[in-house]
């Protein structure tokens, strides 16, 4: 791949991440649907990893994780590690045994979103008290996953377009 193409590729991926971050961290918190904000950055990280492979997937996961932690007003850490590993694993799967396509994207996104919920509720699970039980958390977890899966659809179009463009550059 030419140096110029590589730079354009990095810029486009950065732009995708920033746009997704702006929507997840800036716009949707002010436009909560039924009090909820969708998770978009894990979807973007998993999608990019599926279409671009392990290396770009891992790096995208790293930056998506940092942005995710910031958007949750948390110290950089949990999602940074989680999404980096997600990017690497999904990328490695795509490089070896998984076919790139819409159904695979949705299945992987679904799994990543469910694991994301588990990562988010983990502190609550440790300190369960009378007011917060698993049944208290479950409706929010399910609704958040469904809401995020719905918005995974428009993200897929951009990720697929970016993936196709990368394939062309690679020849």
């Amino acid at each position, binding site marked *: 791949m030419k140096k110029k193409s590589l730079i354009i590729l990095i810029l486009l991926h950065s732009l995708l991440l920033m746009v997704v971050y702006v929507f997840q961290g800036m716009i949707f918190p002010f436009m909560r649907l039924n009090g909820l904000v969708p998770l978009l950055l894990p979807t973007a990280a998993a999608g990019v990893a599926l279409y671009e492979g392990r290396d770009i997937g891992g790096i995208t996961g790293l930056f998506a994780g940092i942005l995710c932690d910031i958007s949750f007003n948390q110290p950089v850490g949990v999602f940074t590690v989680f999404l*980096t590993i997600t990017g690497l694993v999904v990328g490695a799967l795509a490089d070896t045994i998984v076919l790139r396509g819409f159904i695979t994207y949705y299945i992987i996104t679904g799994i990543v979103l469910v694991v994301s919920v588990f990562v988010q509720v983990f502190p609550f699970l440790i300190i369960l008290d009378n007011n917060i039980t698993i049944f208290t958390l479950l409706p929010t977890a399910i609704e958040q996953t469904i809401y995020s899966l719905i918005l995974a659809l428009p993200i897929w179009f951009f990720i697929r377009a970016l993936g196709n463009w990368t394939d062309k550059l690679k020849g």
Partner: protein
Amino acid sequence: MKKVLLTKRSIIIASISLFLALVTLVSAIAFSSAGPVTGVANTITRPVRALSSTVARTFGNIFASIYRYEELENRYEELLRSYVRLQMDVIDTAAIVEENESLRMQLDLRDRNPNMRLEQVTLESMNSDNWTSTFTINRGYANSEVRQGTPVSTEYGVLIGQVSEVGATSSVVITVLDTKFSAAAFVGGDTREDADGTVTVKGDFLQMRNGLLIIDHIDDDLNILTGASVFTSGLGGVFPSGLHVGEVVAVDTHANGIGRYATVRPSRDIETVQNIFIIIDFENPE
């Protein structure tokens, strides 16, 4: 698969990620701060956040108008009815002026507490997860006297939260809706003499999505009425006394039949609040 995953590049990427998390963890344990990585990441994304925040809030207001159309319509009807009722009543102007004066006194935070030092801050971003209720403000230890636990209010003395983490140039505030929030409060009045009783008002996960908080474990001898105002008591010295927290909207018995709880609607919708102040210093009356 194993060969593809465990390559030199993968290990480098994973190591960078773990290193960043480790730096944050060490900072959190050793210095009780979010750490340099979070600071740098926040600083880099600050221009984007500042720009997007303005746009997002405009969108948010439009969205709120659409989403709450029905609620606003009902409210409008209700207000119209009360307006007509008021017109039909004989209005005692002197009484209204007196009441107005009383409310003004109640709301004027600086007048009531001259030793209180306020600093205006700007809301940078709301949190985007569904498990906590926080926002960030543009003040940190490098550009303000803000510290962990600093109360956050509006100019009218409405409590909206408390600083939970202080960074270099920005801080995280947990709102009154967050499950970590709790405050000693008076119900029914802003002083011990006027109040019906002393309670603890706190965030509740189930009510957070509805924009409400709760008063739990209400004493059997305490009669809390719907519409009663909730004010911080100042007990414990965490919050100044007399900050308005909200209004009781319902009093219910727990599902298991043991004990009562009240739901409280905050006095201010945090997403639409314009002027935010941190209370750097205050003195509670003896």
